[in-house]
């Protein structure tokens, strides 16, 4: 099927006087791993619940694989969901829960289900009431992946998983994407987003403040150079690209935006003895979006 996996047009949600989501325009292509970031209460879960048809949009619309999200009987055939806080039936065992959810989905790759249980190291013979948060999360992950859906809507799916399981989840998400499945990942774990996602959207107070490929975000950023000298420090004022200079004893700290070629030439001529470069991590970039008071 051609066309985007997810598309929203001016998707808006008000809860009384609170604007939870304000005119979201978003397109996620098939096979993409799409990161969805933002502080608590930014509207990430609201967006996912709107895409699932659990909430009714105040304005705007959305489609999943070309099907309006209000037509849940059709759209849900393409969807799977992992909620941030998984509530299970306390009296059912893990196996019974998966059986029930599989029956409702209608199509389960049973071999893959068993593989998932094995890889996530989940004990299915226990009643759900004895599961820890991480184990409930695993049940939801198995239930979501086992139907091999076209689109996976994952709302902070690794909260509560240990690092080994988190790594396993990343592998699963990558495999899914390689098979052409779309992964829509809401997350606070920036490393996870950085490792997995092709593109990210950053949401704040219900508004989209940035949507870009990870590569582009990196290019937006500046490089910090730290150069040590035995002799006198060179004067970098006026060198193209330099936005900030800091000096101490025998060390210069320079922030460069764009190509560092000109700065490097000057540093080389001045007899630099040691050079360290540091590219702002995505984490630092994200944090600027989180912290800014007003959207850019």
């Amino acid at each position, binding site marked *: 099927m051609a066309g985007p996996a997810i598309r929203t047009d001016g998707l808006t949600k008000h809860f009384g006087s609170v604007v939870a989501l304000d005119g979201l325009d978003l397109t996620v292509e098939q096979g993409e791993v799409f990161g969805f970031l933002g502080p608590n209460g930014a509207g990430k879960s609201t967006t996912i*619940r709107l895409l*699932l048809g*659990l*909430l*009714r949009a105040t304005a705007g619309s959305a489609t999943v694989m070309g099907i309006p999200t209000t037509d*849940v*009987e*059709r759209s*849900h*055939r393409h*969807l*799977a*969901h992992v*909620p941030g*806080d998984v*509530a*299970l*039936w*306390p*009296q059912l*065992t893990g*196996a*019974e829960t998966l*059986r*029930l*959810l599989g*029956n*409702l*989905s*209608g199509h389960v790759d049973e071999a893959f289900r068993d593989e998932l249980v094995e890889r996530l190291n989940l004990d*299915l*013979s*226990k*009643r759900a*009431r*004895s599961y820890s948060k991480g184990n409930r999360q695993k049940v*939801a992950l198995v*239930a979501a992946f086992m139907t091999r859906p076209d689109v996976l809507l994952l709302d902070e799916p690794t909260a509560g998983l240990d690092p080994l399981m988190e790594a396993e989840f990343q592998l699963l998400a990558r495999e899914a994407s390689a098979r052409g499945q779309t992964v829509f990942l809401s997350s606070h774990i920036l490393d996870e987003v950085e490792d997995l996602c092709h593109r990210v959207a950053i949401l704040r107070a219900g508004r989209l403040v940035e949507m870009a490929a990870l590569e582009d975000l990196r290019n937006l950023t500046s490089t910090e150079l730290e150069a040590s000298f035995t002799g006198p420090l060179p004067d970098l004022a006026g060198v193209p690209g330099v936005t900030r200079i800091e000096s101490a004893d025998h060390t210069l700290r320079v922030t460069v935006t764009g190509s560092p070629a000109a700065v490097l030439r000057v540093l080389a001529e001045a007899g630099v003895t040691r050079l360290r470069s540091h590219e702002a991590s995505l984490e630092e970039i994200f944090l600027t979006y989180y912290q800014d008071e007003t959207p850019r």
Partner: protein
Amino acid sequence: MTASAASHRAVLALSVRLVRRGALVLAVAGAAYVALEVVSYEQSYPDAASRARLATFQDNPGVRMLQGLARNVDTTGGFVAWDGGWFLETVAAIWALLAVLRLTRGDEETDRSALVLMAPLRASRVLVLQLLAVVAAGLLFGTACSVVLILYGVPPGGATLFGLGLAGFTATIAGCAALTAQLFDVRRRAVGAASALLAAAYLVRMVGNSMDTWSWLRWLSPYGWMDNLEPYGDRGWSALALLMLTPLALVALCSMLRGWRDAGGAILASTDNRRAHNRLLGTPLAFAWRCSRGVLLAWAVGLAAYAVLIGSLLPTLVDYLADDPGLRKALATYGIEVKDITRGMVSFMSTMFGLAFALYACWRIGAARAEEDAGRADLLLVRPLTRRRWLGGHLVLTVGSVVLLAVTTGLSMWAGGRLAGAELSVADALGATMNTVPVALVFTAVAVLLLGARPRVTVVLSASAAGVAYLLPVLGSALSLPVWVRDLSPFQHLAAVPVHPYALTSGLVMLGLAAVVAALGVAAFTRRDLTGP
């Protein structure tokens, strides 16, 4: 020292906060009910002669078994204690039972208790403070009932004793609930066990009141203690001591047991490992049945047991009722003559069963709401399943369950009557209970409408509406309310089956109304936001 005092106060304040609304509603409802009892007594038994005749109920085993000992019923206070006492006791006990298990086992199940246990207090102390809040609510309830009685001129000493008894009864059941919270690790199971204890207390009193040789059994049941309290007669101080000391002993026992177990654990913890049972997981309807059949069975067994008892008491009741002008008048408001008194009683009792069916239905629709509230419905509804089909499944099950309850109750009443030699046919008994099904379905529809439009009050409002509607015809004649007010109650439109033929038109109107209201509710539900966690 001060830090500990502050923690005590904080835990107590939290517990009070969590029960205060329910406690207030309970106290106000209790006061209103007592007022109603006083008014209807003074209207139905205006003179000494009619009141003296009431005293003969003392000798009727049937009446003694169902309502307790009719002592001092020639006084207003004595009548209220006898006619309304068991009802006041039961309602307050059920509230206290649910409140205790919500505060204790419920919060442990969801691990909310961990936040409270962070306080520098022993877990057993936290339990005592929580129970204190519920006991205080019972005291408020008893006080409210006493105050109303005193305002109506009942002797203050007796009224106070009666109120104290109610408070002690409520506290005793609260203590029993706290005990089941220590024994069982799942709230549902603890609620079941505590309800069974309450039912057992009622049954023990019933047996104790059936024959003089068994009257010692009354000392084993809190209901029996209330019978022995005699607030307007001999004043049973030992009964009062039992009502006051048993809660204390239970609190001490629970506090000790709490010290022995882990948070979230239980004395009789169940295992968490078991083989998968894959039946009834195939469709939403099957799964909803799997989740609800246990509670339905409990209702069916409880109602059936009560119906068998009622049926078996019919012959004795009928003998005495024939002589009582007050109850004859009550039957007359339903258009029942003395010669039809057996079937009249069946019709009268079936209306009460109709209320039980309606309450079950409200609870059952509330169970769907609870699934939504916990976020478990989300797990189903993110799959190719429409909300209409999901809620429709719950609705179908509710309707089926109500019919099932009506059939088992009717058959049980007939069986009980047959055992005791009452003149009652299967058709009459079944007709009487089935007659009330449309009323229960009206309240099912009200619950569905609330689930669609005001989900937070699904059970509270629909169940209250059913309770008020049940009382309205009774209230209506006692308070001479205008006809149109009485006509608001679906119960008012029931024919007295089996004495009178089934009122087909009003039955059809009720069913049509139920269908329309339920359809509106389903439509509202499909249009609103789901309120997940």
